[in-house]
């Protein structure tokens, strides 16, 4: 075992290697040895203070990315720069700068939008070209990236094999950077649902309809198990509520929520949004042991949930998801 790796990192890396090699394996996804830590940091606006905020978040989580290939995966959906539909480019740039400052060998930005095929035009309209210098040089369109066929370690859906992108499979650290939004099919879209964008539209189409037919919660859980080396940074500065993830309304929550454990991060986001994480299908599936997403199982740093709670509006079909306190 590499002296700088924890046992958890080693197990995760080994599982990933087996996965990449296409071997059949019964290895479970790396189970967190320690209670997951999730930070909630106040961030009232998209301004220059985000650069210090991001450096603080990385330091707070003790992320050692020296020499590693980091891939930031924002959520790009629509050509609506004035809306809150896409992950804000300033947050992504701040994250890129922070990871580079922390010693990452490279920091790419990668996304495969599920609705629109002209990704670069979409990124342009969303402000990424204006905000991130030489954006096209650091960006990978995951819809058209080179792919490898893999078999998920654990299958919740019926998908026996998936073609996934080499950029994501080869990442030393995959950083999921979603927008904090409600979702009209699964309740909430956060760091785990954001992984849909890692599935290449060039193979599966727009939207990634094969995942819908296989079951959305199940497919989210599959993808969560596929990528062992993840970190999550959720853009909750201004999210979207109501009929998200496209036609909802802006909702200022004023937070950035981060952590290594996607389940814990998403469960915490749900609580901030006033959504009961135990009622979110993909969290239940992926957690298996539901104590993993219980509030008392998660070490919260920074702000408390109660201090930043900002109940998101829910469409009538999802009123049953409302967190009862």
């Amino acid at each position, binding site marked *: 075992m590499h002296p700088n790796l924890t046992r958890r990192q080693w197990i995760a890396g080994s599982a990933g290697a087996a996965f990449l090699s296409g071997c059949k394996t019964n290895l479970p996804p790396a189970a967190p040895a320690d209670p997951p830590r999730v930070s909630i940091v106040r961030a009232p606006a998209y301004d220059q203070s985000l650069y210090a905020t991001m450096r603080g978040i990385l330091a707070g989580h003790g992320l050692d990315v020296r020499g590693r290939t980091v891939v930031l995966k924002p959520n790009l959906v629509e050509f609506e720069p004035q809306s809150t539909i896409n992950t804000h480019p300033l947050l992504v740039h701040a994250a890129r700068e922070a990871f580079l400052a922390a010693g990452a060998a490279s920091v790419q930005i990668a996304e495969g939008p599920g609705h*629109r095929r002209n990704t670069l035009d979409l990124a342009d309209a969303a402000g990424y070209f204006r905000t991130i210098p030489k954006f096209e040089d650091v960006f990978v369109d995951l819809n*058209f990236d080179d792919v490898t066929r893999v078999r998920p370690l654990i299958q919740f859906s019926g998908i026996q094999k998936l073609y996934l992108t080499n950029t994501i499979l080869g990442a030393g650290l995959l950083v999921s950077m979603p927008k904090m939004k409600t979702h009209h099919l699964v309740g909430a879209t956060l760091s785990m649902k954001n992984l849909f964008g890692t599935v290449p539209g060039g193979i599966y189409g727009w939207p990634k309809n094969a995942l819908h037919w296989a079951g959305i919660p199940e497919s989210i859980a599959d993808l969560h198990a596929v990528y062992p080396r993840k970190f999550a940074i959720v853009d909750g500065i201004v999210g979207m509520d109501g009929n998200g993830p496209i036609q909802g309304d802006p909702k200022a929550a004023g937070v950035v929520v981060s952590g290594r454990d996607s389940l814990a991060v998403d469960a915490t986001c749900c609580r901030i949004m006033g959504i009961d994480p135990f009622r979110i299908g993909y969290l239940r599936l992926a957690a298996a042991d539901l104590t993993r997403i219980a509030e008392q199982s998660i070490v919260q740093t920074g702000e408390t949930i109660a201090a930043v709670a900002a109940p998101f509006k829910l469409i009538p079909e999802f009123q049953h998801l409302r967190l009862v306190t």
Partner: protein
Amino acid sequence: MSIEALIGRQNPDGGWPYSRGGSWTEPTVYAIMGLLSVDESKSVQRGLAWLGSIARRDGGWPPRAGVDMSTWVTALVAILGPRNIGDAPYRRAIHWLLDTIGEESAFVYRLREWLLGNSTPEDDGRFPGWPWVPSNAGWVVPTSIAILALDKEDRRQPSDRVRRRVDAGRQFLLRRTCDDGGWNYGSSHPLGYPSHAYPETTGLALAALRGVRSRRVDRALVAAERFLAECRSADALNWLRFGLRVHGRLPAGYCTPSGVEFRTVPEASLDLVMTAAEQGRDFFWG
């Protein structure tokens, strides 16, 4: 992107990437179309050889080499016609298209939905579209491309079976127009909420509806004209030019606005194809 730059993006295996990386079927077909439009033959032959090398036994084409399923790109390859891809592969591709329908139109699926009380007017099964990937639902883009391929085949060699699928596919499109006049990628009212039209899908669907007279088409043409004036996406503008031109609504002497960037192989190639078509060499309808 210049013609030289387009040729320069060709991979050693003969195919083209979308922007960079390995070869994919879709950009390779568009690059071939674009280069044929300007009489560049050497790169075209290498591209056609690559396409021939990845054809699948079921008659379809995969989205790229090494992918073990045939998908919607089969229709794109078929548009190249028998003269370019060979008569037997072409015939197999047409049969693959005729045998492929959106899963929501399949009998077993409709029966199950009916038993569950989930049937909606949109999926009564009479007007099947085409999916991106077999066993998935029909969507606007693959349906439009399949119509373009089969309509070209029907003009080459008229057939009731082909004509019926084209007509049904057109009904599929007409039943999915959005309230604002054009097309989204799929349903006009997913989960009961209205969706907005997209420029690129509106242009493409209009192209597939060439010759169709309907109030829905009229409203879509108005939406397309609005998109053409406002939109700055090269991909969208290519398809809008196509859709408006086949209905005789592209402004005379139209030029792509300055500042529009043709960043990818499909964007640059389709610009060549559309420009040639506007000068009388129509690859899709010729």
